[in-house]
């Protein structure tokens, strides 16, 4: 008896669209006029960006004294935002590189927008150390170049310099990966756009792609190599960021747990942001067929896993503070949980450790409104995690006479708002000008699913 082979796997693309249908669905929003809701969002994002530019301009012209920093708390809002944005970026690389190596087909619908998010988040992150320098026009001093001061070289033993190299590399490789991945889709846009400026621009950036088998073959090799390179890179970047803290002797920072703890936190926060963005985007751009609830559920499972990992790290830290017997360490953690910043600590604990546990229930995991709220809470929680790590470890020094509190000023808050403005401005421009779904990859998945 020749029975039909029964596929137990549900399709990742709903309604088995034809190849042409996929092209149309992804490209259609790019050819229409921007909707009123897009314009409204864009106006808000631009206003936030403008406010940030004014705040940063005021800070650069006046000095770092416009911030709430003091002798005990020398790092606070600015570095919190830097670590927050760098972390956001990590989900994009995880989706595009690590899931590619594991041949996870569900990644194809979300990889393009997640990678775009990575690029924009790393841009936002890079701004903060730049602004923190106070004199950003000397930023090139952090690079080892032959100079007239000796030449005096940068300190290659400093984790801050490692950071410079790691983040420049991360941005460059992510950008190359993103752009290379987009070339076939840019060619698709070139071939369906009416002659004019837009067509010429798409033609220029698609570099004369013609879909030849020879090029595809090399292209697949290149993608695999870039994925293989980006995978250890993404782990190294946040490990190095964590060493900015872990190599110091401050109680609450000085721990070998930091690299894995930061990497897990970065992936967690990044998936929170991807979830937030995609839940809105799929609705506004009518892409529910490609970014299905199953995709959201798969991301929710990663949120649950990484959230639990982060929570495990919180508890390990607490346990070791007690079990390690170091009175300063113990005091630092007691102060975190019970001191004047306890509200921030418990916000972090609630959003990162307890809330994601709701995702054990399939009903909640497949409910879009619930996922949206949880993803927002994850973003908030992960911002507070960095704030708690940085500020609570610093504000009560070894010397009780130096104990103080830190409060941000409007300038610092303004720059944070500005970074969100920059992020959303870039993301909104991205969804209007570039294909936000990797059409060629989705076509490959859809063709595979259509096979008998």
């Amino acid at each position: 008896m020749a029975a039909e082979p029964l596929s137990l796997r549900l399709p990742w693309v709903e309604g088995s669209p034809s190849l042409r249908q996929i092209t149309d669905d992804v490209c259609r929003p790019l050819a229409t006029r921007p909707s009123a809701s897009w314009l409204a969002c864009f106006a808000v994002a631009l206003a936030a960006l403008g406010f940030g530019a004014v705040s940063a301009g005021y800070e650069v012209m006046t000095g770092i004294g416009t911030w709430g920093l003091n002798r005990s708390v020398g790092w606070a809002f600015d570095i919190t935002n830097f670590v927050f944005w760098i972390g956001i970026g990590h989900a994009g690389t995880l989706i595009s590189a690590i899931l590619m190596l594991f041949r996870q087909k569900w990644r194809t619908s979300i990889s393009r927008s997640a990678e775009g998010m990575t690029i924009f988040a790393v841009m936002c992150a890079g701004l903060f150390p730049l602004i923190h320098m106070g004199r950003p026009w000397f930023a090139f001093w952090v690079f080892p170049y032959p100079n007239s001061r000796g030449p005096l070289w940068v300190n290659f033993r400093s984790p801050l310099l490692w950071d410079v190299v790691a983040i420049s590399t991360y941005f460059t490789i992510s950008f190359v990966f993103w752009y290379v991945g987009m070339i076939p889709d840019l060619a698709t846009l070139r071939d369906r756009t009416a002659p004019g400026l837009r067509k010429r621009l798409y033609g220029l950036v698609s570099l004369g792609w013609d879909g030849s088998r020879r090029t595809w073959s090399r292209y697949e090799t290149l993608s695999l190599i870039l994925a293989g390179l980006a995978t250890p890179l993404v782990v190294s970047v946040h490990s190095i960021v964590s060493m900015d803290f872990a190599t110091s002797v401050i109680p609450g920072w000085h721990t070998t747990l930091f690299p894995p703890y930061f990497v897990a936190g970065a992936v967690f926060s990044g998936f929170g942001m991807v979830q937030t963005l995609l839940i809105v985007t799929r609705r506004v751009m009518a892409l529910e067929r490609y970014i299905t609830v199953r995709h959201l559920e798969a991301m929710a499972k990663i949120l649950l896993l990484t959230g639990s990992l982060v929570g495990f790290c919180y508890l390990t830290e607490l346990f070791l503070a007690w079990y390690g017997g170091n009175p300063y360490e113990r005091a630092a953690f007691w102060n975190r949980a019970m001191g004047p910043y306890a509200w921030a600590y418990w916000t972090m604990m609630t959003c990162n450790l307890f809330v994601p546990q709701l995702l054990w229930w399939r009903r909640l995991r497949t409910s879009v409104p619930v996922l949206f709220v949880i993803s927002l809470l994850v973003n908030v929680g992960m911002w507070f995690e960095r704030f708690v790590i940085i500020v609570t470890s610093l504000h009560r020094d070894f010397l009780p006479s130096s104990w103080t509190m830190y409060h941000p000023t409007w300038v610092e808050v303004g720059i944070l708002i500005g970074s969100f403005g920059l992020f959303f401005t870039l993301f909104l421009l991205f969804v209007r000008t570039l294909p936000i779904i990797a059409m060629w990859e989705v076509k490959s998945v859809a063709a595979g699913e259509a096979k008998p």
Partner: protein
Amino acid sequence: MSGTLVARFAGETELLAAVRAVRERGFRVLDVFTPYAVHGLDEALAAPRSRLPWITLAGGLAGLAAAVGLQVWAAVVDWPLDVGGKPANSALAFLPISFELTILLGGLATAGAFFWRSGLGRRIEPRLAAPDVTDDALVMVLAVDCGEEETALRELLSAAGARIGEEPTA
């Protein structure tokens, strides 16, 4: 007189079967154009493996050598600085930057070699085998001599489910 024949296929299953069939009969496939990477095509055409990984290795080693060389030279030879009593050649601290530059140069070299070998950017307005080849057309381009051979090839392709177009225009 020899010419080219353009055959369009509805799906990758038909395309792969046709590629195998025409190669078995000794016809020459010039190239295949598809809107996405069709897996199994390289095997069906017995195409050689890409040598790009060697470029990655070379680029990565160059990055590693540059990073180790610069750090050790600057910190040991050119201007040894006492930072917290550490030895001048505190090699372990040079590891992160060496790693990052290995990745950076390895990745950039591979991408550069890909662009160069594929001729991307050399001709901005490509000759497309079919206008919708970046949309949904799977196209095989064959070299063929006119006459009996062409008739046989046309029959073979039609049997494989292809629609035969004219030579690529422009």
